[in-house]
C-alpha cells in the first residue's frame, strides 16, 4: 500500500530540497545574501512539478493535434518543430482563466447593456484584461515621458530648465557632434544617463526581492528579471576581437623593436668609431657600397641582380621572381619538326584514312548513327500531340516518321524554325568572336573529331586543285588543272568578275563568254573572292554557290555540254564542303519546286545527278538525298512508259536510282515496276531503248542478288525476256534465280528471348495503422484535413459561446439572488420594525392597562 498523500508530499518536498531541517538564523542570513535568482526559479519549477504529480487531473494531454496544424505545417517542421506538442493542457487552470476572462470582458459589457452614456475610461490598458497592472503602469509612464519630450522639443520656455537639448548641425539625420571620433564619449554619457535609471530600478528591485525572501513565497515571474546574459555569439565575437587586437599589438611591438634594432645597427659603426676614438672612413660611392654590402653578405651575389634588388622592395622582387619562373615553366619547348614520311608510310596513312571514312559511311548507311533531326521528328511530333490534344491517341505512324503534312501544325514548324535560327545565331557569334577558323573546318570537326588532323589537309589539297593558279602563279596552275580546256589565254575573258550573288547575276556575268568557259569563270570568281581574302567574301561565296545550284538546272534546260556540267558539279562539290548548308538548302528548294511541278524536266535530271555525286547516297537518311530519291521514285511510279521520251528519261532515272544504291544496295520497288512496264509496253521498245532497260535489269539483278525475295522480284521478267528474245539477259537472270533458290531458307526472324510476364507487386505499408489515412492524393487529404480543422474550430467556437451563455445566466441569477436578498432584508427589516413598534405599542398598552388597573 502506497504511503499517504501527506507523507508523499513531505518526502518529495524534502527530496527537492525545498524543505529541510530547521536553519539557524545565521545560516539563513548567509543563504539570503548569496541566493542567486536562478535558484529561486528552479525552486518554483520544482514546486510546480510536485503540484502536477500530486494532482494528475490538473493536467491533460491534448486529445487532438494542435490547432491550425495544417496551416502551420511548414513552421512546425523547420527548426522550432513541435511548438505545440509538448504543451500539456490544464483544464482547471484554463477554466478558471476563462472564467476570469469573462468576468473581465463579458461582465462589464453585460452590465453596460441597455445603458446610454456614461464614462469611458480612456487610460492606457484600462479596458484590457490582458494587461497586468504593472505593464499598464510602465506604458503610462512611457507615454507620459514621450509626451513631455515631444512637447519640449519646440517648447522654448521649457527648454531652459530641462536638460540642454543639442540643436545644431546634423548629417544624415544625426547630430554632427555624434559623428566624429567623439562617439566614444557620447556613448559613455548615454551610459551614465541610463545608469541613473538603472540604479533606481535596481534598488527598487532589490527591495522587492528582499520582501519576497522574507515572505518565503515563490515570486511571480513578472517582477523577476535577471540581467540579460550575453549570448554565446557575442561572447565569442568579443574573444576573437580581443585576440586579434592582442596579435596586432604584438606585431606592432615587434616591428617597433626591429626598427629600433636596425637604427641601432646602422649606428654601430659610428658608435664603434666613437668608442675606438678614430674617425670612420668617408662614405664610399654607391657601387662600392654595394660591394661592401655584398661582402658583408655570405653568399656572393650577381651585382646586376643586386642592383635590381637594391631598387625594389623585397616582396616585389620575390613576386617578380615567381612570375618569371612560371613563365619559364610554361614556355613551349621547341618541338622536333615532323619527320618526312616515306612513301610507304604515306600510303599506309592514306589507307587508314580511307578505311576510317569507309567505316563511317557504313555506319551512316546502317543508320546506326541516327542523325539528330531524324530522331527529333517523332519526339517533336509526340510532344505536339501531347501538348495540343492530350486525350487524343498519338498517331502511331508518326513513330516511324510518317508525318502527314496536314497533321503537322504549321505553327510548330515555325517555332522550330525560330529555335533553329537562335541556335544558328549563337553559333555564328561563337565563330565570329573566335579565331579565324574556316567554316568548313569548324563544321567538319564537329562531326569527325578524330579526322581533324588529316581532313583539312586533304581538303586544302583538293581545293587547291580548283583555285590554284590564280592565287599563286596563275597561268601555269590553270594550265595544269586537268581535264579543263586550257583557259588562261582565252581572249575576251576578263580576269576579274564581281561575285554573282544570285542566278540572274550569274547569267549576267557569263552571258558574254562562251558556254565552255564557265568553269574558268567559276574558277576565277572563286579565286578572286576566296573567303581568306575578305570577311564579306564568305557570305558572297555562299550565295554564289546557291546560284550555281540554280544554274545547274538551267544548264540542263539549255542542254549545255555535259562535260561542262560535270565541271560545274565538281566545283559545287568542292564548294559544298565550305558551304554545306547553303548548298543543301538550294538543292532542297530545287527538289521542292520539282515536287510542286509534279514532273521532272531536263534541269531536274541534271540536279538529281549532281546530288548523287555530291552527297553520300548510301546514308540511311540524308536531308538532300532522301527527298531526291523520293522524287525519282514518284516519277517512276506515276508515269507510264508510253512514249520515247518517257522511256529515255525513265531509263535514265532507273539507272540513276541504281547508281544511288550502288553501295547500300537498297531495294527500289518503283524501279522494278517501271522496268517491267517498260519492257512489256506496247509497242515493244526499239533496240536502243530495250537495251537500256535490259541493262538496268541486269544491274538490278546483280545489285539485289542477296535479297531474300529475289525470286519473287525477278520471276515476272522471265516470260517477258523470252518474248523479247533477250537471250543473254534471260540466261543470266536464270542463273541468278538458280543461285537464289539454292540460298533460300524459311525465315527465322523471331529468335528473341521470350519476354517475361509482367509482375505487379501490391504496395504494402510498413507498420500499417488503421486509424491513419493513407490517401495518396495529396490534395484530397489536405482538403479533408482542413475540413476537419474547420469543424473542430466551429465546435470550439460553439462551446465558447455556450460557456458565455452559461456565464451570463449565472451572473443574472446571482444578480437576481442579490436583488431578492436585498428585498428580503428590507422586508424583514420592515416587518421587524413594524413588529417592534407593535410590540412597543402593546407593551405601552399593557403598561397603560396595568396602570389603569393599578390606578383603579
Amino acid at each position, binding site marked *: 500500500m502506497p504511503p499517504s498523500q501527506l507523507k508523499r508530499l513531505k518526502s518529495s518536498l524534502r527530496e527537492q530540497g525545498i524543505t529541510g531541517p530547521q536553519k539557524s538564523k545565521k545560516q539563513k542570513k548567509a543563504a539570503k545574501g548569496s541566493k542567486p535568482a536562478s535558484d529561486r526559479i528552479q525552486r518554483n519549477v520544482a514546486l510546480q512539478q510536485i503540484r502536477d504529480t500530486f494532482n494528475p487531473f490538473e493536467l491533460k494531454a491534448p486529445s487532438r493535434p494542435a490547432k491550425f496544424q495544417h496551416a502551420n505545417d511548414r513552421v512546425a517542421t523547420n527548426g522550432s518543430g513541435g511548438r505545440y506538442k509538448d504543451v500539456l493542457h490544464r483544464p482547471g487552470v484554463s477554466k478558471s482563466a476563462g472564467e476570469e476572462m469573462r468576468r473581465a470582458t463579458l461582465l462589464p459589457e453585460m452590465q453596460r447593456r441597455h445603458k446610454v452614456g456614461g464614462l469611458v475610461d480612456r487610460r492606457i490598458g484600462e479596458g484590457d484584461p490582458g494587461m497586468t497592472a504593472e505593464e499598464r503602469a510602465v506604458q503610462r509612464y512611457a507615454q507620459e515621458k514621450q509626451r513631455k519630450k515631444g512637447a519640449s522639443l519646440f517648447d522654448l520656455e521649457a527648454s531652459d530648465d530641462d536638460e540642454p537639448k543639442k540643436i545644431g548641425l546634423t548629417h544624415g539625420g544625426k547630430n554632427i557632434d555624434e559623428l566624429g571620433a567623439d562617439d566614444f564619449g557620447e556613448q559613455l554619457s548615454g551610459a551614465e544617463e541610463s545608469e541613473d535609471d538603472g540604479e533606481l530600478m535596481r534598488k527598487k528591485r532589490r527591495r522587492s526581492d528582499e520582501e519576497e525572501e522574507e515572505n518565503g513565497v515563490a515570486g511571480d515571474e513578472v517582477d523577476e528579471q535577471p540581467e540579460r546574459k550575453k549570448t554565446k555569439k557575442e561572447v565569442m565575437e568579443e574573444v576573437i576581437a580581443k585576440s586579434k587586437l592582442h596579435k596586432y599589438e604584438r606585431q606592432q611591438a615587434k616591428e617597433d623593436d626591429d626598427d629600433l634594432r636596425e637604427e641601432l645597427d646602422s649606428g654601430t659603426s659610428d658608435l664603434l668609431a666613437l668608442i675606438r676614438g678614430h674617425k670612420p672612413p668617408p662614405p664610399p660611392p654607391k657601387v662600392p657600397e654595394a660591394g661592401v654590402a655584398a661582402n658583408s653578405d655570405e653568399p656572393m651575389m650577381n651585382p646586376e641582380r643586386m642592383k635590381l634588388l637594391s631598387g625594389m622592395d623585397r616582396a616585389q622582387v620575390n613576386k617578380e621572381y615567381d612570375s618569371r619562373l612560371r613563365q619559364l615553366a610554361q614556355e613551349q619547348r621547341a618541338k622536333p619538326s615532323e619527320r618526312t614520311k616515306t612513301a610507304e608510310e604515306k600510303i599506309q596513312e592514306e589507307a587508314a584514312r580511307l578505311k576510317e571514312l569507309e567505316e563511317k559511311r557504313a555506319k551512316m548507311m546502317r*543508320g546506326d548513327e541516327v542523325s539528330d*533531326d*531524324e530522331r527529333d521528328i517523332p519526339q517533336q511530333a509526340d510532344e505536339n500531340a501531347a501538348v495540343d490534344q492530350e486525350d487524343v491517341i498519338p498517331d*502511331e*505512324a*508518326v513513330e516511324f*516518321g*510518317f508525318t*502527314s*503534312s496536314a497533321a*503537322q501544325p504549321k505553327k510548330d514548324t515555325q517555332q522550330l524554325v525560330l529555335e533553329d535560327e537562335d541556335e544558328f545565331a549563337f553559333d555564328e557569334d561563337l565563330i565570329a568572336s573566335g579565331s579565324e577558323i574556316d567554316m568548313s573546318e569548324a563544321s567538319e570537326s564537329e*562531326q569527325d573529331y578524330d579526322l581533324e588532323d588529316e581532313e583539312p589537309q586533304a581538303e586544302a589539297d583538293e581545293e587547291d586543285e580548283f583555285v590554284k593558279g590564280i592565287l599563286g602563279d596563275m597561268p601555269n596552275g590553270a594550265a595544269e588543272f586537268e581535264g579543263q580546256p586550257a583557259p588562261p589565254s582565252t581572249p575576251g575573258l576578263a580576269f576579274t568578275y564581281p561575285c554573282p550573288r544570285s542566278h540572274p547575276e550569274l547569267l549576267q556575268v557569263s552571258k558574254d563568254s562562251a558556254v565552255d568557259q564557265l568553269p574558268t569563270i567559276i574558277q576565277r570568281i572563286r579565286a578572286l573572292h576566296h573567303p581568306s581574302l575578305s570577311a564579306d567574301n564568305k557570305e558572297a561565296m555562299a550565295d554564289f554557290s546557291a546560284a550555281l545550284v540554280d544554274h545547274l538546272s538551267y544548264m540542263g534546260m539549255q542542254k549545255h555540254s*555535259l*562535260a561542262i556540267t*560535270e565541271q560545274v558539279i*565538281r566545283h559545287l562539290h568542292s564548294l559544298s*564542303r565550305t558551304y554545306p*548548308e547553303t548548298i*543543301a*538548302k538550294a538543292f532542297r528548294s530545287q527538289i*521542292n519546286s520539282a*515536287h510542286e511541278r509534279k514532273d521532272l524536266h*531536263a534541269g531536274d*535530271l541534271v540536279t538529281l*545527278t549532281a546530288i548523287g555525286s*555530291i*552527297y*553520300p547516297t548510301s546514308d*540511311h*537518311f540524308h*536531308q538532300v538525298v*532522301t*527527298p531526291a*530519291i*523520293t*522524287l525519282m521514285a*514518284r516519277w517512276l511510279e506515276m508515269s507510264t512508259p508510253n512514249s520515247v*521520251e518517257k522511256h529515255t*528519261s525513265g*531509263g*535514265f532515272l532507273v*539507272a540513276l*536510282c541504281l547508281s544511288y*544504291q550502288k553501295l547500300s544496295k*537498297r*531495294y527500289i*520497288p*518503283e524501279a522494278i515496276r517501271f522496268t517491267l512496264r517498260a519492257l512489256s509496253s506496247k509497242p515493244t521498245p526499239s533496240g536502243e531503248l530495250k537495251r*537500256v532497260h535490259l*541493262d538496268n535489269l541486269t544491274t538490278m539483278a546483280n545489285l539485289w542478288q542477296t535479297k531474300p*525475295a529475289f525470286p519473287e*522480284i525477278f520471276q515476272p521478267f522471265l516470260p517477258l525476256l523470252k518474248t523479247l528474245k533477250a537471250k543473254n539477259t534471260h540466261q543470266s537472270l536464270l542463273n541468278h534465280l538458280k543461285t537464289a*533458290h539454292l540460298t*533460300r531458307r*524459311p*525465315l*527465322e*526472324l*523471331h529468335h*528473341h528471348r521470350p519476354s517475361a510476364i509482367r509482375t505487379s507487386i501490391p504496395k504494402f505499408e510498413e507498420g500499417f495503422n488503421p486509424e491513419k489515412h493513407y490517401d495518396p492524393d495529396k490534395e484530397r487529404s489536405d482538403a479533408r484535413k482542413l475540413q476537419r480543422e474547420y469543424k473542430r474550430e466551429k465546435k470550439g467556437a460553439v462551446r465558447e459561446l455556450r460557456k458565455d451563455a452559461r456565464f451570463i445566466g449565472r451572473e443574472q441569477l446571482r444578480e437576481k439572488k442579490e436583488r431578492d436578498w436585498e428585498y428580503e432584508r428590507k422586508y424583514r427589516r420592515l416587518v421587524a420594525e413594524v413588529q417592534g413598534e407593535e410590540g412597543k405599542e402593546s407593551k405601552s398598552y399593557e403598561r397603560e392597562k396595568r396602570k389603569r388597573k393599578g390606578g383603579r
Partner: protein
Amino acid sequence: MPGLILTNGDSRKRKRTDGSATKVNGVKPRKASKTTTSSENTQADILLLEEQILESREHYNNIVKLQSWVDNADKKPKTATLAAVALCRAFCRLIAGEHLVKRKEDSEADAQVVDWLKQRLRGYVQSLTGWIGSPDASKESTALTLLMRVVKEETSQGAKRSEQAWRTDRSTFYVVVKALLESADAEAAREEFVEKYVEEHDDVRFYTMLAIKQFSCTAEEKSKHCISNELHLLSKIEGIPDAPEQLGDWYGQPPSPATHQLLSLPAHRKVAQECWLSIFRAPLTIAHRKAILNIMTPQILLWFNNRMEILADFLTDSFNEGGALSLLALSGIFTLMTERNLDYPDFYTKLYSLLDEDVMHSKHRSRFFKLLDQFMNSSHLPAALVASFIKRLACLSLQAPPGGIVWVVPWVYNMLKRHPACTFMLHRPYHPAHAIYASNPAYQENGVEDAFKALEVDPMHTSAVDSSLWELQTLTEHWHPNVATLAKILSEQFTKREYLLEDFQDHSYASLLDAELGKEVRKVPEVEWEIPKRILTEEGGGLNGLGVLLGRAIDSS
C-alpha cells in the same frame, strides 16, 4: 390558241360570254400597250380576270386569255408568273367546286364545258411542266409548287377520284413526275420535289415510286439521262419507313379503309422493290452502278428486307463488271452477310481475286485497304485463308509505292497477332513436321521450294501458311528510311497489341516529300568526302554510261 368552241344553242349566254371576252380582248391590247411599263395594271387585270372566272362560267374564256400570257413566258416572265398563279388558283377553286366533274344529271352542254375545262387544265399543266428544267430557278420552283397545288386539289376529291388522280398516266401527278424524270437539268426541281413532298408525305412517295416504275416500263427509248434522273431522284429519298406507325402523313385524301394499301408497310416495300427492280433491269452504265452501290447500304437495303437474293444478284453482276465497282459490290455483299445473314460462300474467293497488281496503284487504294481490313477483321477466319491474303499482299508490295507498303506492314502485323498460326510465316525453325522441311529434305544444300501457289484462285488452297514472308524481309532494305524502319517491326518482338491502321492509310509520295521538305535543315548535311574525277565523262573523252543516258534524256525532253 383554241377559242371556246361551243355549238350549243344557248346563244344569249354565249353572246354575253363572247361579248365579255371580246370586251376584254378589246380592252386588253390597248391596255397592254400602255401597261407594259406599269405592272400594277397588269396585275390588277389578272386579278380581275381571275375573279370573273370564279364568278360565273360566262367568263371561262378568261382562262384562255390567261393561258396565252402564261405561254408568253419568254417575253414577259413576270406577267406569266402572275397569270400562272392566278390560273392555278382558279383551277383549284374549280376543282374544289367540282366543276371539272361530269355528273349524270348534267346536260350535254355542261358536259362539254367540263371537257373543255379539262382540256384547258391539261394545257395549263403541260405549259407549266415546260417550265421545269428551265435555268430560272424561281420559275422552276413556282411551276413545281403550282403543279403540286393542283395535284393536291385533284387528289383530295374523294376516294375513287383521288386514286385516279394519283395513278393514271394522264393525271397531273404523273405528268409532273415524268417531267421531272425527263428533263435533264431539273436537279433543283427534283431535289425540291423530294424534299418538300416525297419526304414529307407517304402517299406522294408511294405514288412517285409507282410512277417511276410505270415510267421505266413504258418508255422504250429510255436514254441514259432518264436513268440518271431516276437514280438522282431515288437517291434523294432518305426517309424510309420501317414500321407501319410511321405511315401517317398524307398529301391528298387520307386513305379511308384500314385495309387500304397505303396503310400497309409491305405494300410500300413492294412498290419500292418493283421500282428499284425496274431500274436494275435497265441498261446501266458503270457510273449508274456506282451511284446505286453508293446508296446501297443506307437506302436500298432497307426496302429489300425480305428479298435479299435480288440484291445479291445485282451485286454479283456489279462485281463481275470489275474495277472499282467490284469493291463496292463486295462491300454491299459484306453488309448483307453480316447484317442480313446472307449466305455467300464465294465471298473471300472474290475478295482474293481483287488483289491484283493494280490494287496498290489505284486511286482507291486507301478505301480498298479500309474495306479489306474490315472484311478480314474476324478472328474466326481460317489461318490458311488469312495466310493467303498476307502472302498475296506481301508479293504485291514488292512493286508497291511506299504509301501501300506502309499500310501493308502494320496490317500484316495485326493479322499475325490475331492469327498466331500464321506467325510461322515469319519464324519457322527446323522441325521435321513442317511441310516445307518435309518436302525439302536436303534444304541445307538445295534450298527450299516455295510452297505458295501464286496462281491458285481459292485462298484456302494456296498453302501460303507453309511459305515465308521473304518479301517483307526484303522491304527492310527499302530505299526510304522510314519504310525500312517500319518493315523491321515484323522481325522484332510482337509486344504491341495492335497498330491503328488509320494512321498508316493516307501516305503518299507527296506527303513524304512535304514532311521532309517542310522541315528546316538543322544539322549540317554530310558531303561525300571524295570529289570524283569523272561523273558523266570517261577517261578518254566522251560520256560514260550514265552520261549517255542523261544526254539522251535531256535531248529527248
